[in-house]
């Protein structure tokens, strides 16, 4: 019996300690991955593309150094890109046919320039047209023998002196090229090749930016290759491996995905083609092609972001959050501290005080989304449009009870003897409060203010409709105070938007986690400051 009671007691103690350990573990499970993944927004290996992006979008970096590195990497990439271009000519018949057509047109112009007779002109045009059509047909057919015989008819005209030294000559060299390509690829699989080649090209663009000969894309995110080494590694995997659905071993009905290399000699789609060396070439030389270097991108916390949140940092969000929180403190702190003063020094325990206290508790218990509703209904519908002012006033209401409670506690903690000494010297009640109690309670009140700053910085629901936007201009702060009436970006709303709302941001998880990390760090720093302040205060009190 006693043993059983002992066991129960030990079990209980273990459970109690276990639950606290569970809490600590939860905190770690939450904090570590978030901070670790977020830190990748600041600490990472940048590539030469990153420097190009910084130069073009943010106007920073050494121009000469960048030029040198660009030249080096371009040289390293040259072979692979040339290979890709050569191969895509065979698959992408649109390119070849365009060239043939243009050669035909140029021939016309050439003949007019030579001033041949009209008869001769018509005859040559007719001949050239036949050649062109034969070539185009050869490009379109999927039968190898037919294509070769068509190319033979093209090549038969090669000796025609009229076509020699004319723009039409290029057709024959194209025909030679295409003949070579015909040896290498299986014509019947050309649509398949074309689809895969598109993927390869997209991944090459993702790695190295626009391919040679392409125009500069309008969207910033398409203008640069992989700016980070980890992103480059990811795209390398996409480039090299294709997913094939193969029957699983046990029952043939179910298909399972299998990763195979695109240049695999047996199964890979480009295994037996001329393109095969590209993959190992990129795989082995990727470092030379991109020149990764470790970097600390501390400007992440200050930079504006371009193209949604694709490049750049969280500067506008940090600024917006600071504006919102500081402004809300401007409203809430005087109100809160004076209310606390009244509650401690003046309020008698009557029905009025009880009502006031109930209201403060109610204010603390109102769900944050209802603050959002109220912010919309009151501040926004009254003021006209969502703005920094309405958002910060909503936040001020939200943190008011926090400040009142913290200040009340701090004021109550001031020893009675201080007040009595002041009162005995003839100071009035309010004077005593302002000159003696308030300075003595200062650190405690400051702790409360810091904690409510962190609360205000993290709240999202109240500002959803009152003045937070996902993307927008940075408020230009100045004495003209117009910025008060603009909406702003904020870290908290940004965190929501970047993880759930923003499609483009899904491609840049480091930026998603980076923003969350910024918010968590801000809140943790504020809390750390509060803890330190409290610790110093308690040491001081012990010293007294």
């Amino acid at each position: 019996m006693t043993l059983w009671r002992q066991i129960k007691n030990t079990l209980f103690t273990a459970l109690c300690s276990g639950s606290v350990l569970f809490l600590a573990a939860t905190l770690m499970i939450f904090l570590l991955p978030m901070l670790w993944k977020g830190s990748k927004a600041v600490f990472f290996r940048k590539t030469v593309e990153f420097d190009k992006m910084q130069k073009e979008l943010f106007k920073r970096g050494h121009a000469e150094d960048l030029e040198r590195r660009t030249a080096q990497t371009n040289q390293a990439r040259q072979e692979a890109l040339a290979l890709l271009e050569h191969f895509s000519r065979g698959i992408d018949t649109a390119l070849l046919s365009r060239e043939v057509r243009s050669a035909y047109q140029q021939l016309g112009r050439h003949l007019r320039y030579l001033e041949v007779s009209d008869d001769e002109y018509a005859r040559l045009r007719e001949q050239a047209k036949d050649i062109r059509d034969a070539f185009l047909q050869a490009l379109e057919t999927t039968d190898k023998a037919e294509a070769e015989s068509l190319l033979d008819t093209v090549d038969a005209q090669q000796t025609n002196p009229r076509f020699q030294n004319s723009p039409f000559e290029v057709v024959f060299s194209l025909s030679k090229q295409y003949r070579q390509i015909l040896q290498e690829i299986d014509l019947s699989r050309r649509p398949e090749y074309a689809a895969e080649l598109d993927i390869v090209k997209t991944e090459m663009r993702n790695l190295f930016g626009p391919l040679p000969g392409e125009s500069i894309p309008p969207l910033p995110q398409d203008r640069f290759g992989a700016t980070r080494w980890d992103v480059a590694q990811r795209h390398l995997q996409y480039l090299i491996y294709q997913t094939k659905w193969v029957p699983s071993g046990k029952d043939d009905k179910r298909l399972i995905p299998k990763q195979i290399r695109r240049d695999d000699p047996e199964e890979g789609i480009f295994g037996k083609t001329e393109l095969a060396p590209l993959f190992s070439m990129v795989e082995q030389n990727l470092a030379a092609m991109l020149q990764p270097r470790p970097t600390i991108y501390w400007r992440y916390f200050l930079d504006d972001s371009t193209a949604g949140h694709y490049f750049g940092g969280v500067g506008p969000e940090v600024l917006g959050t600071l504006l919102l929180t500081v402004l809300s403190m401007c409203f809430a702190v005087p109100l809160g501290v004076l209310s606390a003063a009244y509650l401690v020094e003046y309020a008698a325990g009557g029905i009025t005080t009880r009502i006031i206290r109930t209201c403060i508790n109610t204010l603390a218990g109102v769900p944050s989304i209802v603050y959002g509703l109220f912010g919309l209904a009151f501040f926004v519908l009254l003021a006209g449009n969502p703005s920094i002012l309405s958002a910060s006033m909503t936040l001020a209401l939200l943190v008011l009870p926090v400040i009142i409670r913290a200040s009340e506690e701090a004021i109550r903690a001031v020893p009675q003897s201080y007040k009595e000494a002041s009162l005995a010297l003839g100071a009035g009640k309010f004077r005593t409060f302002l000159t003696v109690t308030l300075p003595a309670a200062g650190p405690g009140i400051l702790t409360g203010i810091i904690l409510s700053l962190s609360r205000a910085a993290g709240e999202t629901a109240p500002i959803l409709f009152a003045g937070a936007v996902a993307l927008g201009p940075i408020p230009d702060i100045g004495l003209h105070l117009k910025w008060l009436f603009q909406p702003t970006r904020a870290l908290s709303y940004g965190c929501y938007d970047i993880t759930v709302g923003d499609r483009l941001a899904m491609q840049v998880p480091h930026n998603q986690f980076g923003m969350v990390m910024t918010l968590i760090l801000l809140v943790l720093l504020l809390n750390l400051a509060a803890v330190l302040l409290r610790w110093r205060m308690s040491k001081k009190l012990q010293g007294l």
Partner: protein
Amino acid sequence: MTTAGSQSDAAVQFTRPLRLTFRDDLSSTLLSWLVKSFLFVVTFCSVAAVLLIFVFVIRQAAPFFAESRVSPLERLTEFFTSRRWFPEHQAHPEYGILAIIAGSFYVTITSLLIAVPTGLLAAVFLSDIASFRTRQICKPLIEILAAIPSVAYGVFAVMVVAPWLQKNIGFPTGTNALNASLILSVMAMPTIISVAEDALSAVGREIREASYALGATRAETMLRIVIPAAHSGILAAVILGMMRAVGETMVVWMASGNATQIPSPWWDLSQSVRTMTATIAGELGEVPQGTTHFHSLFAIGLVLLIFTFCLNLLSEHFIMQMKKPKR
């Protein structure tokens, strides 16, 4: 100023009889009255804020019930008994929030089922088992847990927990009632712990000592004596935790999946639900102002507000009971 002179001045001032003129008296009385009433007005701002919140939410919710096409009673019945929430339907919009209220209850109750036992045990640890030093370490830890913004928890739920649930447990969707409840329980725990710990500490030392003197173990003392004695404070803790969970927006919006349904075997937490807060947050940004849908969202907000207000009064009642001296 010489020391001798100032001393003599001070002596002169103190020897003067302390008698105020009528004007001095009046002005100081007036001043102190002014200060007091100024402070009262400032303090009354909180009361005004609560009133304003109620007034404005009610004012925006009223048109929903007082719409001319449907009688208020019908509207009210539909609002609370229908499961069908189709406010955007062109011809026959339907405004039934039963499924939404059920969603709120699902995540709240489930999160409390996790948070209350754990929180209570942790509170016992902090109040009765931990040494002073351990407590010094644990307290900031719990404060940090409380301070982490809800949107950060939401991101964690979407980006870390949801894929994990989907991959390792095999749920069809990772954003579901269970995910939201897990995160909510973590968020409600700090509140529960701190209030419950206060309640446990408020139970007098003599009571514990009497129990130990009778030969009871710690487990028996806590479970049979201290916790029953602190029951009102613990109830307040549970209610405050519940308020936190019911009112939480970002986490449930991001993690609960937002499907307007009551899970069909009622215990199936792997299905998506939608809560009142998430409905408001998700839809208010997109509806044109002044439409019935817009006002219906304020009506949901009003339900939420009244519910939390009642819970708040209840918790206050329990806290008052706790603070009543028992010794």
